[in-house]
């Protein structure tokens, strides 16, 4: 059974490269990228400052009550809201956690994240992600809830993330919620019931 593992272990390639020349070239590319970034930041700096000052005044107006005390939303009190923004190829959603947006998608994954999250879609931390698996690779855990009347499995991973799996047409939908997002199990099921899989989506496991 370990034949494939042994063959993989022997794969370790060691391309012949000129380390010194490559390192110098990589450093030059780094310098150029740094210069480009500085130029871009300098150009955007004025506009950003203007927005920041404007935003600060707006923020004060929006978060101050009549008594002048700022209103702070409890981190644990996340609620689901209807999503009326642009949908992404692969998956559509009816609801998202308040303050979250569809960060992006491809044929394998849809990521729901906070608006200031600048990580790539394939980074699952601090997000809810929706993926597809082939039914053959489906869950071994027994169903303990339902999504749209169909049996579903809700488990907590060793990392504290919550994973919801349920059959959808010929596939298994897998929704993973990172442990920094505090939707209840019922809310996660409600989120799942608003997810539609389009023809663009492909299983990431199979």
């Amino acid at each position, binding site marked *: 059974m370990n034949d494939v593992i042994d063959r993989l272990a022997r794969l370790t*390639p060691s*391309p012949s490269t000129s380390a010194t020349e490559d390192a110098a070239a990589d450093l030059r590319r780094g310098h150029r990228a740094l210069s480009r970034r500085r130029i871009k930041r300098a150009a955007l700096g004025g506009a950003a400052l203007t927005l920041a000052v404007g935003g600060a005044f707006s923020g004060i107006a929006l978060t101050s009550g009549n008594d002048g005390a700022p209103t702070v939303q409890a981190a644990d009190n996340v609620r689901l809201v209807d999503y009326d923004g642009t949908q992404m190829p692969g998956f559509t959603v009816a609801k998202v956690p308040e303050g979250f947006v569809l960060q992006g998608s491809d044929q394998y994954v849809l990521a729901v994240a906070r608006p200031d999250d600048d990580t790539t879609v394939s980074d699952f931390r601090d997000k809810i992600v929706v993926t597809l698996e082939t039914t053959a690779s489906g869950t071994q855990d027994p169903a303990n809830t339902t999504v749209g009347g169909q049996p579903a499995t809700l488990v907590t991973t060793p990392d504290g993330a919550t994973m919801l799996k349920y059959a959808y047409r010929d596939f298994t939908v897998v929704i*993973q919620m990172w442990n920094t997002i505090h939707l209840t199990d019922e809310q996660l099921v409600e989120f799942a019931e608003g997810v539609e899989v389009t023809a663009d989506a492909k299983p990431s496991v199979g």
Partner: protein
Amino acid sequence: MRRSQDAEFEAFVRRHRAPLVGTARLLTAGDAHLAEDLVQSTLVKVYLAWGRASQHPAAYARRTLVNCLTDHRRRPFFRREQGAVTLPEAPVEDPAMVDPELVAALAELPPRQRAAVVLRHVHDLSVEEVADALSCSTGTVKSQTARGLDKLRALLTPTQLTGDSR
């Protein structure tokens, strides 16, 4: 300050570039040119983020490499030009690849599953290190790796001919 960072970065590149290219070649299923492009992009990003990357630069570079590959696959030109399902013959031409059949089988895995298998079993990273590189949970790494190995075994097992023994 910048000069000392440059020296640290250069030392890192001298030590880790070749393994990184090796990883990239496996992640791209033997496409040496794409692997080199991805490594160059990765190292630029590592350089730009050296302040926070320098704590664990190898792990940061691996994570960035996987992200660069994912980003590359999302680009419109990649989607337009990937109509064929046949594997380019690059693995056979690449002398660094000692097992072209296995590399071809790796190419059949979905990208993240392939990355999990390569990082776990070729580079012998721990489940936690692979989870960090792929930005997912350790449970996901275990399931992706197990399924990837199953699929590789299925692909590499010769088809048994069945029939009458007469």
